């Protein structure tokens, strides 16, 4: 059984082909330009050509048995992965105004998959699913629920796929893992407090902008500051949004393009402030997680920069209040990639859903 995992990131379509239940990586890569140069359909065709070309050399007769698509935003409607059926597409269509950057290319990708790989089931994995049932006290903002803001006024969290898989990976250990601090180290880092598999607190917000600083995104910021910027620079909301999402975060603090590992694993003076700000914000969010769970059993680091967790644990763990426990069992790094997590999950999702529904398309 071969699974093709696909994920949009910026202007790039990333892909990976996995066999043996997602355990074996057959091929991985990316094709750029789906927003700027080609259509999503053409981009997918390039991916399939590359997959076929490589497979001819290495594995004869490779077929794709299922496709796993990564979806950044699923709103309140998708609380778990789904095999795409007609009603799924209708539902996604109704959500375009909530995620205008994400949903249209996704819909295009789904129809391209059905065109180019007919009969192949498509499974959607939503980053927000894990957080649909977040407790109300954590979920809601203290603003008028009837305000017109263009999207649902609630907190989500944007790395649910990593948090869920990382927490699940701890469940097989013999060590007690009832209360987990899950730290996802991606370009938008995110911290969640997870009790018995369900999140009770998360640093992400209504969008991925809230919470910790990212590689280029600001994280939490005072509303009054944004209003002052609007007044003083005469910038419109779009310009401020570009500032906060593309020129801020660790990159804004350093003054040149950097990533989380560049900052956290370096002793250089020019990244000192960025490193200290990031460490401090992590510490504060972890303190919130501790309050949300009245303690913790384990910390797990995940995401593409999961390895940075070793450095973070070295200064973070000694600062935390905990009972007599060996430090070595307190934290771990879950280094499986997003594409591989989705591939591994795809089989489980398909086993739970009758395949007939894919034919409705």
């Amino acid at each position: 059984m071969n699974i093709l995992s696909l994920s949009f990131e910026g202007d790039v379509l990333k892909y990976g082909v996995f066999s043996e239940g997602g355990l074996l990586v057959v091929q991985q890569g990316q094709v750029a330009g789906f927003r700027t140069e080609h259509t999503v359909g053409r981009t997918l065709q390039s991916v399939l050509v590359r997959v076929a070309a490589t497979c001819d050399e290495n594995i004869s007769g490779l077929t794709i048995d299922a496709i796993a698509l990564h979806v950044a935003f699923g709103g309140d409607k998708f609380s778990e992965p789904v095999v795409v059926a007609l009603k799924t597409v209708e539902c996604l269509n109704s959500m375009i105004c909530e995620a205008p950057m994400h949903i249209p290319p996704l819909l295009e990708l789904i129809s391209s998959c059905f065109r180019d790989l007919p009969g192949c089931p498509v499974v959607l994995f939503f980053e927000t699913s894990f957080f649909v049932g977040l407790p109300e006290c954590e979920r809601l903002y203290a603003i008028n629920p009837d305000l017109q803001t263009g999207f649902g006024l609630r907190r989500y969290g944007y790395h649910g796929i990593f948090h869920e898989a990382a927490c699940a990976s701890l469940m097989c250990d013999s060590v007690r893992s009832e209360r987990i601090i899950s730290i996802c180290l991606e370009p938008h880092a995110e911290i969640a407090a997870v009790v018995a598999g369900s999140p009770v607190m998360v640093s992400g917000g209504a969008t991925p902008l809230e919470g910790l600083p990212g590689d280029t995104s600001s994280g939490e910021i005072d509303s009054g500051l944004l209003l002052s910027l609007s007044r003083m620079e005469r910038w419109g909301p779009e310009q401020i949004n570009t500032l906060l999402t593309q020129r801020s975060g660790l990159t804004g603090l350093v003054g040149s393009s950097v990533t989380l590992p560049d900052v956290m694993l370096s002793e250089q003076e020019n990244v000192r402030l960025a490193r200290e700000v990031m460490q401090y914000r992590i510490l504060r969010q972890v303190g919130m997680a501790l309050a949300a769970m009245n303690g913790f059993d384990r910390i797990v680091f995940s995401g593409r920069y999961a390895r940075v967790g070793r450095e973070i644990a070295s200064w973070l763990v000694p600062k935390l209040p905990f009972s007599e426990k060996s430090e070595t069992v307190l934290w771990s790094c879950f280094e499986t990639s997003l594409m591989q997590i989705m591939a591994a999950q795809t089989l489980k999702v398909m086993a739970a859903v009758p395949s007939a529904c894919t034919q409705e398309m």
Partner: protein
Amino acid sequence: MKILVFNCGSSSLKYRLIQMPDECELAGGEAQRVGPPTAAPARIYHSVGGGEPQVHYAEMPDHGTAFTAVMDLLVDEGLTCDAVGHRVVHGGVLFSQPTVIDESSMSRLEEISGLAPLHNPPTLNLIRVSRKMYPALPQVAVFDTAFHSTIPEKAFTYAIPQDLSQKYGLRKYGFHGTSHEFVVEEAARMLQQPLEQFSAVSCHLGSGGASLCAVVNGKSVDNTMGYSPMQGLVMSTRCGDIDPALTLNLLAYTQGNEDSVENILNKQSGVLALSGVSGDIRDILTLRGDGGRASRTAEIYLWRIRKYLGAYLTVVGHASAVIFTDTIGENIHEVRERVCRDLEIFGLKIDLEKNRTADSFPCDVATPDSLVRILIIRTNEELAIARRVYTALVSEHRSAAR
């Protein structure tokens, strides 16, 4: 030295005449409903020597006229003062110390007046009138942001391009500093610990604004409010923390009308927006039978305080105390109970009975085996200001004599 302290609210003016250094209150009171006419007439509750307050009615269309009305009452009692202290909410980066007001400091104050649009302009109005009427009296501004000038760079920095931050002073300032500083000093004294070794989390929970302050070795190291008083906790009508994208979307929907967005986030959000009926958490805690909306509102309000309490206890490391102060913090035992319970991980144990019956302050409502004391301390911003004014004038006098 008799120091007259003024504390300007957006529609009120508190004042106290205090004999320093013995800290004896000679007179005090509060002018209410200052500003445009409201349903009830503007009035001053005035008391002398700690006696029962008497009500006096006067036209007070702005804080300058309220000041004149208060001065008239004092003169009628034969009371005079040697110096005036003013609470100024926002000192920006220009003021981190109590400052004797002269022409140059006055123009710098005017410069930063926009940083606290609700509070700084009425205060400036009052200072102007008072300087004109009493040119010989020394006047000292004491800043709410001053106590937070020790917040380290890692905590006051927003993750935005640093050239922009520097150009406009975009950083965390923190507020309620005068109150936090006062209760922290009182707490250290109460626990007989040297201030410079005293670490705590101070919870200033007012009926309007509210903030938590992390204190290490007697100094502020973080405050839940930020560049403006909008950030942090859920407040009476202020939103506290929200996703930056929500603010930007509101700006887009109002066609870039910053005043309108500020009005929504400052005056129509918080407890008022969540409950739909009242911005006062005391009303919400006692409200029943509204389909659970009130209890949900209370949960959200309390949850945010708990999260920040956890964050700051972690930042501080070994806190000696959690301090509750101001209207809600001092008087509402349910808030203290629901904030402190189930936080044993931080060594915090509240004695429910002691907490419920606490009525004389300061007091400690932690259980004997709690590793962190839970203190209720009545804040006294006017006394704190009088202390700063006194110190500033005495040291100025000394340096002038040298």
